[in-house]
């Protein structure tokens, strides 16, 4: 219990402003006493970042494994899956000696795959990890504004994960109505097995998750605004910080609206209200609900849902911008344009949500506005792509693993972005809506691309996290298999989608129109299995390198300008021994005045021009 008391004291000290506390104690950090307070209930942003990362990785493996299972059903419907019965039990239905996935479970897996990857991996795992790791380090801060709330943020995420994990094992199965959880399917336990207890747990889990995001987001924003070190003006911040900052704002403003939708959904499920239900006859019974509108939920959901895709992709953009610049040894091209495009994307993401709903019976007149707003997003996105490519142009490129992934990100973002232009057109969306074209689009642009950004970030900042490097050979194998595999999976999906094959189909047998692509589905499944296997390789590399990787010899192995490389190889809680560094220039002085790079803390030299 001694530890608990210490925490209380710590909180009180925080209330009074902690700077003096660090001034007194930064030698040997007295709060690093026990294992539990150091590694489990840690308030050190670096440890919390690692917690987010590893939890995210575990979830990524679970989520990806689910996709492999349902891809096998889809690619090889005639082959028996009885071998997996010991694991999945009654969800494998054996008929005539051939075991197939039960349709309910297929949909449960699809739903869980989406939920886990979108929220737990790409939101928490990506922005949670790197916002925590980099915001204080790159800004020159001791820690987050409120380390205690930062810790809570992780533990709320952890609890959300526990609840979701638990829902996988209940007898009626996890929620099976798609990650968007549209009512009435999600509101009526009669309509689907998974909409019973599974949906309740899903709602609880995501509500906890939103609490986590809000606690984190408030912290990130306050830290960026209030805790920058001396000289770190907004226009000197690395693009990573800009990206995390805007991401946090998006989360702060959009998740509450999702919560309002969730609370109304809970009332519809539990209290008999009619917010989203109207004139429903299900299971031989006419429900008394009238006057609600299922489309209202969709609006509330996508008011979050669209910013959510930027919550996922913006951190990846930030990480990639930084990695590209460092490893191309060139300043990022058009820094201000990059910042403005991040802000523009952030703003626009709030006024385009209904482009997910062109075909759900919304007012065709307002769709016109949404089309225009949506396609305007192409402009800042194109600016970013242009700037990344120009940054690479003529650079002294180091083709190591983080750089490869960063370039891979740009490639993926271009491919996925182009298809987005088609989907943003309501007229084309009539055919494309809810087909594999959409699946391919969002997997490439926010799934694979975000993962590439995350990998680039992990390979690049792994030395900062663990003081060792990840294995470069394994990393390159990882990269090449992943990029080729990702295209192999998703390229054919565009084709299938254009042919009109709808997503979320357990089997295409009953439709002549969709049944022609069995071969392609097999191909996609095989590619998916290979890519999944390669990710396992990455995980092995990751954990191996934590303990046995090549040791870091210098503080700044990549020759980067930003502040995180000025700390000790393994910085303690508080980050810098002694005083905080002072910033005198922007983060992208590479190849300037004959210097390979000039770190941010170097004061302007005599006669130096263009000090940003």
């Amino acid at each position, binding site marked *: 219990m001694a530890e608990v008391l210490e925490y209380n004291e710590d909180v009180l000290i925080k209330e009074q402003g902690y700077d003096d506390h660090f001034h007194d104690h930064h030698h040997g950090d007295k709060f690093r006493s026990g294992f539990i307070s150091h590694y489990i209930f840690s308030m050190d942003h670096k440890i919390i970042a690692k917690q987010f990362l590893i939890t995210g990785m575990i979830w990524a493996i679970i989520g990806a494994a689910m996709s492999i299972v349902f891809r096998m059903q889809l690619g090889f419907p005639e082959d028996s899956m009885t071998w997996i019965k010991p694991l999945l039990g009654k969800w494998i239905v054996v008929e005539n000696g051939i075991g197939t996935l039960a349709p309910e479970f297929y949909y449960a897996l699809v739903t869980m795959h989406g939920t886990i990857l979108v929220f737990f991996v790409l939101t928490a795992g990506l922005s949670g990890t790197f916002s925590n790791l980099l915001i204080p380090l790159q800004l020159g801060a001791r820690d987050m504004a*409120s380390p205690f709330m930062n810790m809570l943020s992780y533990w709320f995420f952890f609890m959300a994960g526990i609840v979701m994990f638990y829902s996988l094992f209940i007898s009626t199965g996890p929620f099976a109505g798609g990650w968007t959880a549209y009512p009435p399917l999600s509101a009526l336990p009669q309509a689907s097995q998974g909409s019973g207890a599974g949906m309740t747990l899903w709602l609880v889990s995501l509500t906890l998750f939103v609490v986590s995001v809000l606690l984190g987001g408030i912290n990130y924003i306050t830290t960026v605004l209030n805790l920058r070190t001396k000289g770190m003006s907004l226009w000197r911040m690395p693009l990573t910080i800009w990206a995390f900052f805007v991401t946090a704002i998006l989360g702060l403003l959009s998740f509450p609206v999702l919560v309002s939708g969730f609370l109304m959904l809970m009332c519809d499920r539990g209290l008999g209200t009619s917010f989203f239900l109207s004139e429903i006859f299900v299971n031989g019974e006419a429900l008394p609900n009238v006057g609600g509108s299922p489309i209202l939920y969709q609006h509330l959901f996508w008011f979050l849902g669209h910013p959510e895709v930027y919550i996922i992709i913006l951190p990846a953009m930030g990480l990639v911008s930084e990695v590209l610049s460092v490893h191309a040894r060139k300043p990022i091209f058009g820094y201000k344009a990059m910042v403005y495009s991040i802000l523009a994307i952030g703003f626009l993401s709030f006024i385009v949500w209904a482009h997910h709903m062109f075909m759900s019976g919304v007012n065709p007149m307002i769709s016109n506005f949404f089309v225009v707003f949506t396609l305007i997003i192409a402009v800042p996105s194109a600016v970013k792509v242009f700037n990344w490519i120009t940054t690479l142009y003529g650079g002294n490129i180091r083709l190591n693993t983080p750089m490869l992934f960063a370039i891979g990100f740009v490639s993926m973002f271009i491919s996925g972005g182009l298809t987005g232009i088609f989907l943003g057109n309501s007229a084309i969306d009539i055919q494309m809506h809810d087909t594999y074209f959409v699946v391919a689009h969002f997997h490439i642009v926010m799934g694979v691309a975000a993962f590439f950004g995350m990998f680039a970030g992990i390979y690049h900042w792994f030395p900062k996290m663990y003081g060792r490097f990840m294995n470069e050979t394994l990393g390159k194998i990882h990269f090449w298999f992943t990029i080729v595999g990702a295209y192999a999976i998703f390229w054919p999906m565009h084709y299938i989608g254009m042919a009109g094959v709808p997503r979320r189909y357990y089997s295409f047998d009953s439709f002549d129109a969709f049944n022609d692509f069995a071969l392609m589905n097999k191909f996609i499944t095989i590619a998916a299995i290979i890519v999944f296997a390669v990710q396992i390789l990455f995980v092995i590399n990751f954990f191996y390198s934590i303990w046995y990787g090549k040791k870091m010899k210098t503080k700044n192995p990549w020759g980067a300008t930003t502040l995180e490389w000025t700390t000790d190889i393994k910085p303690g809680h508080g980050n810098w021994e002694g005083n905080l560094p002072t910033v005198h220039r922007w983060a992208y002085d590479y190849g300037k005045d004959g210097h390979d790079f000039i770190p941010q803390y170097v004061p302007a030299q005599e006669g130096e021009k263009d000090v940003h």
Partner: protein
Amino acid sequence: MATDTALDHDIEVQSGDAWDGGKKPFKASYGKLMMWYFLLSDAFTFSGFLIAYGALRISSPTWPVPDFVFQTFPGGITGWPLIFVTVMSFLLIVSSVTMVRAVQEGARENRKGVVFWMILTIIGGLGFLGCQAWEWTNLIGHEHMSVTTNPFGTHVESGVYLEDANGDAYAAGATKETFEAGESYLIHKHNGDWVQREYQVTSGTDEGTRMNQEFGPKAFGALFFFITGFHGFHVFSGVVFLIIIMLNAASGVYVERKNGYEMVEKIGLYWHFVDLVWVFVFLVFYLL
């Protein structure tokens, strides 16, 4: 005010942009900033509710008229439209004012003043909760409105009732009750059964047809209890926090803190926010 502790390297006198690092550009402590951003996100939750309310209200062909629904006053008085809820609004405004006074006393490091004004604020908050409890009891117990049933209907055409208030046919020679389009009615319950009175339409295309009183849009009851309930929950948690912080202040915890009574200031922000939300709840549910 919060003590303006900066980061631990020496701060030179800075003349540059307010956005430069090394100082607090917003001249506010991180705690206050975080409270502001929390309130911003909470405002979005409420906006989600209120906008959903607006959409559902617009989509309903009729909507109960608030001055008909909210016209009762404790003591069995009816026919006082909106008076009771105005009293509730006053309570909240007054408690907001006492909160401002508490913060002011906090800024002067006047412990007794803080505690005194906070107690008044708590009383105001409890009073508001009590009023809301009475209002709910009246609506649920007396008028039988619930999240699933809305007995407040609106006539779309003029007409004349064929039955009296108990649902019995009029005695011979009795003057029949007439009504006009747009008028509201409340469907009563007698012995556990709803009495939907029969009437004859006297205007419009349906002239002459006989109809029964219909229940109003269900969304009204659900939205009302849901949104005022969510607001009430905020008031309730606000009261709990107020009590905790008041006790802290009374025990002198804040006297020793460097940032003094900042906690009072933060809970003050929260409390004013609750008042702020009420302005809009009051607007959309009671006034429009």
